[in-house]
């Protein structure tokens, strides 16, 4: 008797795409901005992963620069890096919208929703790895917290 069958996808070709492995190995947006307009940390107590995100805002209130310092798995590190690159030039509502579409893709894996996701579409097959979705979303929760701090009362550039 056979139980419900999982898929036979090969993670070395679908999940760990070249872009993800490369960014995990050598991130483009690693570091901490000093000074920064906002910063926040995201923790995943389940695995001990931690992402620190700092942002510097432009005159229009959008993200001029974003950096991450990630202690985590390949998925988490690559997600933080591609996130930091993807949100440059975006204002908060656009970032929230992008995160919402990213999250929807991670749940559904549907490529129809990924057209506007650019580099983030690399994570499309993560929906087959449900226990790993949190790895990809952790940097985004830290980014949104960092944006809130930057926009919040008493906000302003500070040395973190």
């Amino acid at each position, binding site marked *: 008797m*056979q139980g419900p069958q999982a*898929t036979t996808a090969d993670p070395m070709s679908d999940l760990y795409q070249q872009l993800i492995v490369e960014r995990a190995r050598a991130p483009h947006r690693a570091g901490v901005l000093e000074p920064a307009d906002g910063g926040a940390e995201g923790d995943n107590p389940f695995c001990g992963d931690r992402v620190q995100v700092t942002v510097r805002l432009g005159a229009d209130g959008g993200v001029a620069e974003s950096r991450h310092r990630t202690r985590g798995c390949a998925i988490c590190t690559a997600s933080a890096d591609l996130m930091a690159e993807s949100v440059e030039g975006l204002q908060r509502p656009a970032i929230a919208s992008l995160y919402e579409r990213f999250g929807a893709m991670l749940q559904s894996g549907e490529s129809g929703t990924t057209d506007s996701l650019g580099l983030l579409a690399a994570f499309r097959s993560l929906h087959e*790895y449900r226990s790993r979705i949190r790895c990809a979303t952790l940097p985004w929760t830290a980014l949104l917290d960092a944006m809130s701090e930057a926009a919040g009362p008493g906000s302003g550039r500070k040395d973190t």
Partner: protein
Amino acid sequence: MNEMSAVTLARPGLTGFEALRDDFPILSQTVHGKPLVFLDSAASAMKPAQVIDAMSDTMRTQYANVHRGLHWMSERTTDAYEGVRDKVARLLNAPSRDEIIFTQNSTGAINLLAHSFGATLARGQAVVISEMEHHSNIVPWQMLRDRAGIELRVARVTDAGELDLDHLAELLADGRAGLVAVTHMSNVLGTVTPAAGIARLAHAHGAKLMLDGSQAVVHRAVDVQALDADFYVFTGHKLYGPSGIGVLWGRTSLLETMPPFLGGGDMISTVSFEESRWAELPHRFEAGTPAIIEAIGLGAAIDYVQAIGFDALQAHEADLTAHALARLQAIEGLQVLGHAADRGGVISFTLENAHAHDIATLLDRNGIAVRAGNHCAEPLMRRLGVNSTARASFGLYTTKREIDLLAETLEQVRVFFA
């Protein structure tokens, strides 16, 4: 209900432990199109058909509430349930069956102890744990500390992953410790602690000893009298039994001084609105309808492992562990955590450039199940300077071929992330 045949006879061509795999129906499942290679038994072990059938037969043919009914079904079910208490007493070589208390799991047993033995400790007394405890043997004592003014002391672990007995002696020196509560085998490092030596040390300083046997009871013959322990806890689901049933053993002389933990039916002798009188041991600590079906499943699991014998189980595991350590340590960049002289079949490791979760995902897609993360032992992770590790742990059904497959797949993972 029929007496179960404890162990299936060997299939032609298969010998010894290999043949026992037939007893575990789940091992014939495939995962991601690959045969299941289950190397996560330290989290929870798979169940033999003997356990599954015992539980199913109970529900199909012989079930009612226990300790209550005057009818045939209740009497027979009570006999089966109470019979498991005898089996557990024999498993641990406890002096009396009345010292065996059924709980939900090890966590439930330790919480019971922290509440009820904790109530016998005076403000200013101390409880000593170690750096390599599972969260379940840390948090209940922290709660006791905060509620009752008990000091919580933590004995260090050496770089080899062994309990630092000199430091433990220091922590006991002032005579204020009322209890030492430590693991009998680490769920992260596989270290088996020198329980009899710890008991001597604790008793010499006036402290009692509780051993968390969640892992040890699976791999070793446990004799609580030879160890001279005062309390011993374990859980059924790691011993090839069901989840939802665990055990606290304690000396009668200590259990009798302890107030009940949960109140309710089954734990009283008389109840009025003015006062209630507690039942005798062990029922005083078993409020409410117990996990009847799970207890019967645990009894079948104990029959199963005892029919194999702990000498054979321990030798098999030592063989697997030696093989695994040799294969894993040959992988470039792979670091095994801890190298205790006395260790069981639980191996935590890190791999250079590859995070434990990435390792676990890639292994999973090859049908290989391992644990990754902090293993419910965050303080130990901190002590070892790692955030998370991958962990392979073995059961009686584990084969060297499976360990070879693990090593070969890890080599692919290493190359992939190099």
